[in-house]
């Protein structure tokens, strides 16, 4: 099985729901966005369009971050094709951040709280105790939720049903059908990394 995500740019309303859902699910500190929404103007006057482009880890089939990691901390789950990081193995060299053409990895070197001097909230204190400093973080398609049979937080919380996840190696799956019928495309295919996040045209 190889998991892939399909994001329908026609449906995405740019509400940042996925970004917030991910932050709530993983308790990411300030400056870490496992998924984020980029606003992009396309076209030329007078036919200009503002597109909301949700971006995150592309869980590439030939992930350069995995190849560049000197410790094996960046790895691919064989059962799903999810690219993940083992924080216990990461030395924080950041070579994976330089290798990722999508720039979707984040190095957390210091504890930062959203309310600064007022200290961490209860939920921040919970996540601070669970996560390591001096290591790189990234999206893992909410692997824990997937193992429980749930959808990733960004998919489950999208109010416009713009995100879909499924097995791309199964030609009858919804993601395979959407990519085929709607002309799904990937970002920066010329980099040759085989990304597994597809976008449907706006």
């Amino acid at each position: 099985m190889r998991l892939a995500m399909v994001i329908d740019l026609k449906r995405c309303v740019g509400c940042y729901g996925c970004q917030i859902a991910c932050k709530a699910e993983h308790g990411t500190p300030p400056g870490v966005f496992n998924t984020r929404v980029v606003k992009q103007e396309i076209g030329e006057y007078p036919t200009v369009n503002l597109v909301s482009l949700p971006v995150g880890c592309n869980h590439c089939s030939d992930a350069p971050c995995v190849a560049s990691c000197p410790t094996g901390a960046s790895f691919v789950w064989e059962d799903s094709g999810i690219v993940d990081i083992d924080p216990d193995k990461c030395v924080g060299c950041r070579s994976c951040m330089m290798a990722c053409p999508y720039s979707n990895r984040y190095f957390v070197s210091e504890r930062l709280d959203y309310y600064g001097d007022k200290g961490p909230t209860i939920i921040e204190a919970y996540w601070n105790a669970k996560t390591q400093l001096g290591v790189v973080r990234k999206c893992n398609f909410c692997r824990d939720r997937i193992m429980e049979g749930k959808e990733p937080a960004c998919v489950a919380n999208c109010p416009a049903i713009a995100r879909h996840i499924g097995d791309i190696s199964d030609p009858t799956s919804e993601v395979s059908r959407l990519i085929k019928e709607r002309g799904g495309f990937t970002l920066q295919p010329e980099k040759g990394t085989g990304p597994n996040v597809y976008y449907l045209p706006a």
Partner: protein
Amino acid sequence: MTSGQLKYEKFMVDLTREYRPQREWAEGRGLYLIIGHFLVGVAGGAWIFGHLFDHPASLVCSFFLAVGGGLCHLINLGRPERFWRMMRCIRTSWVARGFWGISFFMVGGIIFLPALVFPDFLWSADSFIAKTGEAIAWVGAVIMIGYMGFAYMVSKAIPFWNSPLHPVLYIAYALRGGAGLLFLLAPMYALAPRLEASLLQSWIWITCLVIALWGVEAVAVMSSGDGAARRSFHELFKGNLAGYVYIGILLLGLVVPVFLLSGVAVAQTSLSLAFVGLTSVIGDLFIKLCSVKAGVHIPVRI
């Protein structure tokens, strides 16, 4: 404001830019990586020239530079206590190969150099143990001067580095730095006049090679490079890094040494050559600093 808060503020501003500068390998503890690459490069180059010109002082000096460079590499890590894990992925990772290179060099140096420096040491410089150490250090030196450029070249996020010229440039910097170090040591540990002329010729040829490679890179980036690579070049010559480039690289690293070597103002003595070595080495540090700091990420867009 703490460094973490400052980093966050910069990051949030960077996200609004079309071309986001890479800061992880250039600011904060990332600066140690640049210094580490500089020291390790000079160490590798000095090892090669030290052998070619039979100059034991530069061999010893290159060992200590490599130790300093290795320490800088460690400081750059987020979790330095796990450094030993970097020996694992040598088949795919240039960082892991670099780790092996520096380790080989240090182990080989520890075995070989005491025998070279102390005639009454446990084993002689011609013994099998010393020769084995020397061979190990040679392998380490070759990896050390080679791995840096490749580590940058495989960085797909930064188009300016993602060029096949980068490894050649880094090898050339290392050799130039090595020659510069020999000049720097010349007043204390003299070279034979014939060797000095030969080393000078090597330095000139390598400098010409560096200039030619930069020319080719400039033409390649400006004619067919993508927007992010062009942005990096703009940063170097017209942007925030222009001061470092014109004063550090061109003036200190090129104009001053060439002026001194021309013999117009001062006669060519070992002291003037030492000054040439010093300015050349400082120029190389600025080259590395600027080319790393100039890196910008590929913009995320459809």
